[in-house]
């Protein structure tokens, strides 16, 4: 005897989670609620999406986060600046060097020692940050291929990323959470032979990037899946505070490394790639991935120049101490300070308020790039298929550690 399975969706669940947006009566008869995530590879970690669907069409998306919330701000307001640094690593854990660089730069500017940092230290910082940018983009590109069914590029970029991870481990002693860039200097000088190894790696990497172009970016299946999907217009992107490759994919040449010109970036020669709509419209998923691949090539250029500088102009000397400028106590004067830097995912900003009496900030707010980038998701996925939704999520490239903080 067969038992009839009765399926009944419960719109009141949606009422509970998003009371302001939907009422039960708003849903049409054909519409259905689909839960995607949390803890599913296609939601890139711990993100739950409540998707209102009409057949296969996405009507609305309501993202729910907070599963990874570790109270970074609360921690940062209870310990001194240099002790908060390990927590900064854990925000964007695939690009910890860049986050450290932003945080440290903020503290240094507040102390007014920004100009006193030795050039060698600055070049090492840029070198490791760009290495980490490549590693971060590799994760983004690789898992993006994985999301839409391409497995080979994922293996390839992970293989290349492994070299970077090993080099950064050699530098700092840790695999992902480095704690290498310190306020006023570095944990240690580069290990002996690092520059040569790095130059070797660059020579190895260059032909691999060409391969990546052929196997993924210009692949017909990949183009079909991503072109004209999730189109984000430039105005909407700016209005949503979207930054980084997602904004540049929409065709705006806006990169803080050039706009603000922090650290030694003004002395380096590199281009800012933007999306041109070569395969579809400007600002679609293909453009965003294309921008990331191009940025990897630009980072390679920067690394080459840094190695050149580090081996010729700012050589390793016996008496060079990367910790010479590290202050004993970080006690900036009372002020409000907003500092920002270009992370692989966009503009990472820190807002500090110090009272001048203690070395613990009164308020430390992290303006995370992924947080703003993710908020545009609902607007660019309405009207596309559910399978396209997965492609759109991947193309934004967010890290939940940074969204939840």
């Amino acid at each position, binding site marked *: 005897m067969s038992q009839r399975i009765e399926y009944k969706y419960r719109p009141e669940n949606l009422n509970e989670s998003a009371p302001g947006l939907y009422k039960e009566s708003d849903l049409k008869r054909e519409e259905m609620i689909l839960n995607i995530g949390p803890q599913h590879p296609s939601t890139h970690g711990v993100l739950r999406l409540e998707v209102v669907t009409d057949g296969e069409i996405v009507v609305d998306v309501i993202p729910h986060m907070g599963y990874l919330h570790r109270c970074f701000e609360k921690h940062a307001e209870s310990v001194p600046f240099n002790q908060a640094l390990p927590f900064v690593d854990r925000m964007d854990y695939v690009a910890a060097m860049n986050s450290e660089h932003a945080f440290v730069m903020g503290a240094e500017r507040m102390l007014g020692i920004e100009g006193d940092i030795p050039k060698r230290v600055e070049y090492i910082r840029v070198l490791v940050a760009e290495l980490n940018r490549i590693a971060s983009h590799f994760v983004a590109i690789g898992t993006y291929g994985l999301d839409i069914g391409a497995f080979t590029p994922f293996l390839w970029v992970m293989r290349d990323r492994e070299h970077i991870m090993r080099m950064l481990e050699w530098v700092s002693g840790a695999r992902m959470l480095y704690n290498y860039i310190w306020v006023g200097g570095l944990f240690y000088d580069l290990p002996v032979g690092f520059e040569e190894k790095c130059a070797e790696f660059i020579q190895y990497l260059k032909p691999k990037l060409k391969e990546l172009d052929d196997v993924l970016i210009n692949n017909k299946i990949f183009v079909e899946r991503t072109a004209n999907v999730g189109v984000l217009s430039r105005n909407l992107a700016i209005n949503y505070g979207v930054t980084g490759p997602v904004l540049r994919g929409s065709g705006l040449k806006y990169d803080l490394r050039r706009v603000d010109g922090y650290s030694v970036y003004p002395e380096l020669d590199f281009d800012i790639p933007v999306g041109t709509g070569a395969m579809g419209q400007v600002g679609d998923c293909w453009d965003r991935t294309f921008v990331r691949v191009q940025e990897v090539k630009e980072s390679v250029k920067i690394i080459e120049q840094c190695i050149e500088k580090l081996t010729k102009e700012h050589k390793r000397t016996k008496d060079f101490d990367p910790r010479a400028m590290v202050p004993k106590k970080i006690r900036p004067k009372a002020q409000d300070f907003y500092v920002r830097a270009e992370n692989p995912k966009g503009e990472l900003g820190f807002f500090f308020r110090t009272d001048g009496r203690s070395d613990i900030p009164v308020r430390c707010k992290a*303006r995370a790039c992924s947080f703003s980038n993710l908020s545009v998701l609902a607007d660019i996925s309405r009207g596309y298929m559910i399978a396209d939704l997965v492609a759109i999520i991947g193309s934004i490239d967010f890290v939940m550690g940074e969204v939840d903080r």
Partner: protein
Amino acid sequence: MEIAEFKLLVQDRLGESAVLSIDENATPKALIVAANQIKDICAYLRDNDQSYFDMLSCLTAIDNGPEANTMEVVYNLYSIPLEQSLMLKTFIPRDNPELETVCDIWKTANWHEREAFDLFGVKFSGHPDMRRILMPADWVGYPMRKDYIEPEEYRGMKTIREEGDPS
């Protein structure tokens, strides 16, 4: 544009009382503005050709503690074409922190305001979807307030670790 010019710009349009003072010490330099006019000020600063702040970089709240009994909401604005930035600060009472929303001027404010509500309890009137974003929906209290005491239990789970407990 200099900070004094921004002050005049806003005061010309919205009256003397719109800008209370200037904070030269902040980076970028800040205008301290009246809380009840915040929406008009933001809308004017975005639409005006001289300021044209098309991007809201950061929105955050600050709790000044029970003694001062005030809260602040800080807006960091940035103009991409003009390459200038500005900080706006508003003071609101701590026992009834309420402010008008700016999320129909910059959509990015939607989530930032939700976060400020979640962690500080600042209510933004006119916000389309004012609910917690990072904490569970049934969490009691606002964790980033200075006098916040962590509850000992959440849904039957202990939240406070015992001394020497490594977990």
